[in-house]
């Protein structure tokens, strides 16, 4: 509800607002599953002090093809959700249409850079496993 009402004052067409809401809600629901997997796999199956993984543990984890794919999907979904959330927050400042377009472009670039950096990080670690 909040996501809809917040975006509802923008001058964006209703279809666009609805699409943004659907993506935010869809990625949010997917994240409930992905975050649970990520947190349990990383912190709740490790018995060491503070439930933290050692360097070798991390390499073994990302070296597993299933976990490798899950982490990549998690990164993409969390980044989309985060960028859409930031967009809603920034639009709350009552931006002009021009500023909104710039915000959209800026967040798209930030999202792509974030995903690219994460892919490199996960890929390099998996290659060391």
């Amino acid at each position, binding site marked *: *509800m*909040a*996501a*809809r*009402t*917040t975006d*509802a*004052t*923008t001058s964006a067409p209703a279809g666009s607002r609805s699409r943004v*809401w659907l993506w935010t*809600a869809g990625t*949010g*629901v997917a*994240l*409930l599953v992905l*975050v649970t997997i990520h*947190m349990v796999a990383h*912190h*709740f199956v490790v*018995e*060491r*002090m*503070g*439930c*933290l993984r*050692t*360097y*070798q543990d*991390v390499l073994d984890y990302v070296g597993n093809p299933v976990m490798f794919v899950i982490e990549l999907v998690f990164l993409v979904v*969390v*980044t989309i959700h*985060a960028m859409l*959330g*930031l967009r809603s*927050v920034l639009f*709350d*400042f*009552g931006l002009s249409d021009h500023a909104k377009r710039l915000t959209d472009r800026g967040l798209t670039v930030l999202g792509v850079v*974030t995903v690219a*950096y*994460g892919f490199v*990080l996960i890929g*390099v*670690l998996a290659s060391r496993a």
Partner: protein
Amino acid sequence: MNARRGGGSGIDEIRKAREAPGPVPRKGAGPVAWFDIRHRGLGQFAFSLNRITGLGLVFYLYLHLAVLSMLFLGQEAWDDFLGLAATTAFLLLDVLLIFGLLAHGLNGLRLALIGSGRGIDHQKALYRSCQVIGTILLLGAALHILGSE
């Protein structure tokens, strides 16, 4: 807007606003209003909490990527960091992170349900259920993390 204060008329207003053509009035006057929960209902409080935890989680996402970048430097750098990360102060921050994840995730699920037209008449019950489930999960997670110290 009475919808913020809950009650039957509030739900009617939400329904009316949903069906009306054109923009729906927003809940607050901008980010400053998130922190002003005076004379506001549960919905506004949940909205503010979602925004604030959301911003915190975006900050954490980039902090997490920065910390994980230490893995590029090899085993020694990472194991040095683990010495710091296993201190009680850091583990308490982990518990704070889990609070943010639970508050944002469960409230977000509630918003997704209501936004898709489900449970509009039971918003408060949904919110209270999320609080109870979140509190139980948070306590379990905190005991697990701090207990492993």
